[in-house]
């Protein structure tokens, strides 16, 4: 049957599979090789899964990860969960012990269908050879149809080895009703109500999630923002959905959001939320403040609308179609007071100035200055991937995404170890584009074994390790919330990352100035030579601010030093300070 399964994958357009072989999957790998599907030998199945997830996000079609039964399959679990919580299309294929020994605790038996049930959009165990084709086609299609997500197909070894001649026309799919994943057309009455709310709003704000990328709806978001003169804020994955250099885009809001974005969302009277599940990370807390706002929620997944914030108007539809309907419905919007926007730009300006001043006082590198330097060098279409931790939060605040689809981060699950393998998966998906991995020293150590693929498959990625020898984001919480008791968050100087890089035949550098950062990054990106750049960061000073403490409201954010006088609560009587007033018109962009 495996030969047929490999052919089906090939017909679906699968040209590469990521994984680690073993007794229960080697027959399938053999069949894949005979079909000329390239197998990327990841050094741990978690890496293969993250790579498939990232590949799926870049290509907009599922990446495929395959593993053997038992430990191979369970090693995939973190990667599958990651794809699930970030709605990324991927297909996992696992080997399984023969059906004859099911439930007998045979060597390397794990019920992977049971294990992954709550973290897959769909999973299926193939019990007869003729199910293999329909199961693979169904799982592949479900991974991208509607809201994307991971799927899994489990192949018991005896079924794999049965002869199967697909002589008759076989059923294409399992009996799934795919039509329910086609989002309904936006309800005209709901669209009219939403349009009325927006037209009457004093301070409308558009909150953009990752769904806007999947619906390719950023042109509509920006048109609507321009029409309403409404600031746009994003979630962490929503950074992937709109260009940061549009003057109305304030950046990400939330626990680790930008100050002007937190200020925008906090002071909105009407929030138009598109393609987001309203995570607690984005709004700080739901009540009372968020529940007091008028909320229009557009999502293609009906189970998301009203899940966390009851909307005033809920629209279940494709984001692009709903926004187009809204644009048609909106009359010429009365021009509103531009004060609110001016105030937000003032907040931005104060914030940027404070960060500059703070950077000057830092003993070692200021993480955000490193990011800004890298951004100057990296072409706009560079795919940027992050690890999880303070470095990720700095990137959330200070890495500008210019091209939708070029920002890959582990947002929903927050998986340390995502960066290196995801960067490899992204590079495999887009070999012609630079890939930059912004990692933490802790995150890097979780999956650095996959660096072996850089030379093995010629995948020149640029890795920048924000090396604070700490699990800094947790240490940050210890400093603020645990009375500075530092428990299990500081590392020793082992290992030497330069030697790790050397072991994998990759150039490593430890820059001592921003100029050196610029020079080396430019070299790596321009010549397409892989690089590990180790950035020395002080783990006493590396506190990501602004920061909204868990349970606090956005206006209560702990601000960077020098902004103690800046209130995040807008007053309609606000006047620009004198020296600013003259320059107010030139503050857009950063």
């Amino acid at each position, binding site marked *: 049957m495996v030969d047929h399964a490999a052919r089906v994958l090939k017909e679906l357009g699968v040209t590469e599979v990521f994984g680690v072989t073993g007794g229960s999957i080697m027959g399938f790998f053999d069949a894949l090789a005979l079909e000329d599907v390239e197998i990327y030998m990841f050094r741990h199945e978690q890496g293969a899964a993250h790579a498939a997830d990232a590949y799926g996000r870049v290509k907009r079609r599922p990446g495929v990860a395959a593993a053997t039964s038992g430990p191979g399959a369970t090693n995939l679990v973190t990667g599958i969960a990651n794809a699930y919580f970030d709605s990324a299309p991927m297909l996992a294929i696992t080997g399984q012990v023969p059906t004859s020994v099911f439930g007998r605790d045979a060597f390397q038996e794990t019920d992977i*269908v*049971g294990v992954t*049930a*709550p973290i897959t*959009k*769909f*999973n*299926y*165990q193939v019990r007869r050879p003729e199910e293999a084709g329909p199961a693979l086609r*169904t799982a592949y299609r*479900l991974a991208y149809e509607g809201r994307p997500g991971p799927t899994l197909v489990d192949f018991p070894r005896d079924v794999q080895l049965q002869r199967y001649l697909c002589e008759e026309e076989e059923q294409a799919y*399992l*009996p*799934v*009703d795919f039509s*329910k994943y086609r989002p309904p057309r936006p309800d005209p009455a709901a669209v009219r109500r939403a349009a009325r709310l927006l037209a009457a709003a004093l301070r409308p704000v558009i909150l953009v999630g990752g769904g806007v990328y999947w619906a390719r709806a950023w042109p509509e978001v920006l048109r609507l923002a321009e029409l309403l003169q409404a600031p746009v804020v994003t979630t962490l994955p929503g950074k992937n959905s709109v260009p940061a250099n549009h003057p109305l885009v304030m950046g990400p809001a939330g626990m680790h959001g930008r100050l002007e974005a937190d200020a925008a969302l906090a002071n909105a009277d009407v929030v138009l939320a598109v393609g987001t599940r309203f995570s607690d990370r984005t709004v700080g807390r739901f009540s009372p403040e968020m529940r007091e706002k008028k909320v229009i929620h557009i999502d293609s*997944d*009906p*189970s998301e609308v*009203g*899940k966390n914030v009851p909307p005033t108007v809920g629209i279940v539809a494709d984001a692009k179609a709903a926004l187009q309907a809204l644009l048609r419905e909106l009359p010429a919007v009365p021009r509103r007071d531009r004060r609110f926007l001016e105030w937000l730009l003032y907040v931005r300006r104060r914030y940027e100035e404070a960060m500059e001043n703070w950077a000057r006082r830092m003993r070692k590198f200021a993480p955000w200055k490193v990011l800004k330097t890298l951004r100057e060098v990296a072409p706009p279409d560079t795919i940027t991937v992050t690890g999880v931790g303070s470095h990720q939060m700095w990137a959330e605040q200070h890495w500008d995404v210019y091209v939708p689809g070029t920002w890959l981060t582990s947002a929903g699950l927050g998986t340390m170890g995502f960066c290196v393998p995801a960067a490899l998966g992204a590079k495999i998906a887009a070999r012609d584009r630079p890939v930059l991995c912004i990692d933490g020293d802790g995150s890097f150590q979780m999956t650095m074994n996959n660096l072996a693929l850089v030379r093995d498959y010629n995948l020149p990625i640029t890795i920048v390790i924000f090396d604070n020898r700490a699990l800094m984001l947790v240490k940050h919480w210890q400093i603020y919330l645990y009375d500075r008791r530092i428990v299990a968050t500081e590392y020793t100087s082992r290992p030497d990352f330069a030697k790790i890089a050397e072991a994998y035949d990759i150039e490593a550098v430890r820059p001592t100035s921003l100029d050196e950062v610029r020079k080396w990054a430019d070299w790596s990106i321009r010549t397409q030579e892989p690089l590990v750049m180790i950035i020395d960061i002080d783990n006493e000073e590396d506190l990501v601010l602004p920061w909204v403490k868990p349970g606090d409201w956005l206006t209560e954010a702990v601000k960077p030093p020098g902004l103690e006088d800046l209130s995040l609560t807008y007053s309609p009587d606000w006047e620009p300070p004198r020296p600013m007033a003259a320059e107010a018109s030139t503050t857009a962009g950063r």
Partner: protein
Amino acid sequence: MEAVEMGVEEMGNARGLYELEVEAWNGMDAVMRIVNIARRAKLRYTEMRTVFEPTGRLRLRLMGWGEGSEARWLAAKLERMPEVYRVEARLLRPDEDAFPA
């Protein structure tokens, strides 16, 4: 007992005893996946029954006390499952004093 039948969207927020009826395929694996989601709804379950039909379809009935919003969340989640053809939710008995799960 007079039941109030509702589409998932129209369900109100009344607290009480809810019944969900799910029609699906894929046997025990589907039941497992349905139960996996139901475990996470804040309902206090009183009964669950599944009939596996010779056609390969299954009918699962689930009853539990709780808020309408929870029953609605569960119904919406189940409806999204590829295995599921149909979900119906009804409020069997409104009860403001019903103790949530």
